[in-house]
């Protein structure tokens, strides 16, 4: 399922945070949104997920304006994992995943076979079968993040939006989470991720959108976007880009000014 943003304007009070942004993410693409702190990238993602009401413009799922759909209907197609969701530490992993069935269930409805299958699929996909009965509070950061992804997967979304899913994770746990997301994407899920880490963005995206001051500064393949000439104006520091000897992918680094 494709998701498009059309001349989207998002405000905080009277301050414009996202200023008339348009782009389209085709079905099955994995896009990373990068940019400096305060560039509006997280707000843009929240706007795409109807968590932030647009001042102007639209977000469209397969051409249909989100605002013309009921919020539950949207939740059956589009899932968002917000930045560091509050810890429901006493819930078990399976209970958390079951919450993802909410948009599919009526208020007094018994769980159906499709519900059970969706939850078990989500747990298996996030590699959490062995941890399903454990409370979130007893898990590592990476496992906990996978549990929240399992919640999103139980929604059976066609589009998955992730807001900095690897923040606070060490490199191994970050890779664990990104590998999971990429695998789901390879199976057809459209993914848009806000990422701080440019190296992860290079490695795990088909396309990178660099946001600065509420507008798109650059939009293209990792090889095109991750160049000193594009990154330097966005992040405001001198950058250097080396090549991963194995894959040839760009690895952007800040230029050392004091060693």
């Amino acid at each position, binding site marked *: 399922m494709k998701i498009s943003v059309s001349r989207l304007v998002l405000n905080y009070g009277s301050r414009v945070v996202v200023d008339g942004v348009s782009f389209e993410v085709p079905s099955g693409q994995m896009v990373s949104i990068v940019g400096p702190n305060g560039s509006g990238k997280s707000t843009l993602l929240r706007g795409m997920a109807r968590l932030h009401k647009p001042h102007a413009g639209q977000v469209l799922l397969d051409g249909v304006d989100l605002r013309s759909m009921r919020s539950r209907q949207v*939740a059956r197609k589009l899932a968002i994992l*917000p930045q560091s969701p509050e810890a429901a530490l*006493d819930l078990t992993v399976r209970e958390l995943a079951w919450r993802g069935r909410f948009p599919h269930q009526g208020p007094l409805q018994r769980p159906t076979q499709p519900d059970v299958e969706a939850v078990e699929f989500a747990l298996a996909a996030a590699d959490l079968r062995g941890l399903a009965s454990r409370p979130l509070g007893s898990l590592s950061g990476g496992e906990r993040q996978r549990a929240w992804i399992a919640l999103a997967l139980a929604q059976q979304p066609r589009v998955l939006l992730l807001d900095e899913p690897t923040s606070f994770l060490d490199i191994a746990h970050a890779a664990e989470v990104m590998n999971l997301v990429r695998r789901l994407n390879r199976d057809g899920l459209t993914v848009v991720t806000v990422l701080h880490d440019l190296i992860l963005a290079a490695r795990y995206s088909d396309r990178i959108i660099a946001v600065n001051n509420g507008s798109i500064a650059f939009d293209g393949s990792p090889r095109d976007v991750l160049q000193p000439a594009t990154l330097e104006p966005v992040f405001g520091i001198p950058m250097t880009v080396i090549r991963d000897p194995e894959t040839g992918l760009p690895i952007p680094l800040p230029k050392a000014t004091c060693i």
Partner: protein
Amino acid sequence: MSGIAVTPEDDALVRRPLLLGIRRPLIVASLAVLLLLGISFLSLMLGAVNLSASDALTGLVSNSDAFARNVVWQIRYPRVLDGMIVGAGFALAGALLQGVTRNPLADPTIFGVTAAAGLASAIAIVADRTIPQWGIAMACCAGGLVGSGLLFVIAWRGAVSTVRLALAGVAISAFFGAAIVGLLASSRTFLQISLGFLAGGMYGTGWVDFRTMLPYFIPAAIAAVLVSGRLNILALGDDVAAGLGVLTDRTRLLILAIAGILTAAAVSTAGLVSFVGLVCPHLARFTVGADNRAVVPISALYGAILVTGADLIARLVIAPSEIPMGIITAGVGAPFLLYFVKFRA
């Protein structure tokens, strides 16, 4: 409850069907209903005049014993039914408030909803001494909605800290409470009624209260059960809840309004009863786990048990006279709150 490590085995034990494929909440609910029926029947038997079990039963089901019939049907039976509604009303309101504010100290009395409903009813009574029960009920509903509306304003984004919300609730509660006392003291009437109202009690309640509460208590109670699933989603935080399709502000407003109406029903009959709404949801979570779809209805049962039981005790300790029932619920609830603050919060 709070981050207690649960081993996978414990977890499986809790969630596995316990007996003949019946799940834990159903077993707990069945036991609670049995206990409630037991207390109710004792309440029919005992009081200023004690009836034997067979007399009470005769009075309940036949006309053969005019005295027993009168005691049971005119006095004790409606009072038991009133107690069930009062208890269920406070407990449901407490379960909804704890869920929607994500605050374990939430309770209609602690958060000032009870006092708001009580003030409205006190104003109505002082303004018109002959006001019919339905007039008091309407005043209580208006007051309860104002009280829960104030909470909504304070807890607007659901991210208000536990401490701030509790303090705001205490302030609202103290303000309305003082207004009630001031109003009743300056009106120089109803001292007897005022004591029962302020301390919370079932003295003199009957069929009128029952008939007046039922038409709005039942829809509000059904609504409470229907929204309980959304409490589970709100518990995950506003962003996750909105992502799952819950309209968070509208849902919070709806749930607070339901809590206000349920509190109003209870206050219109029993006055300012404390702690029922605090204790019952915690006991429910303790017995059936954190899923609000079980916690909400089980809380209602526990509330009914607590209030009918407390009222029975209140009628017996200095029989043939009685003490306000709220003294008993506070006597049970206050130590519970202390325990909670010390060991769990």
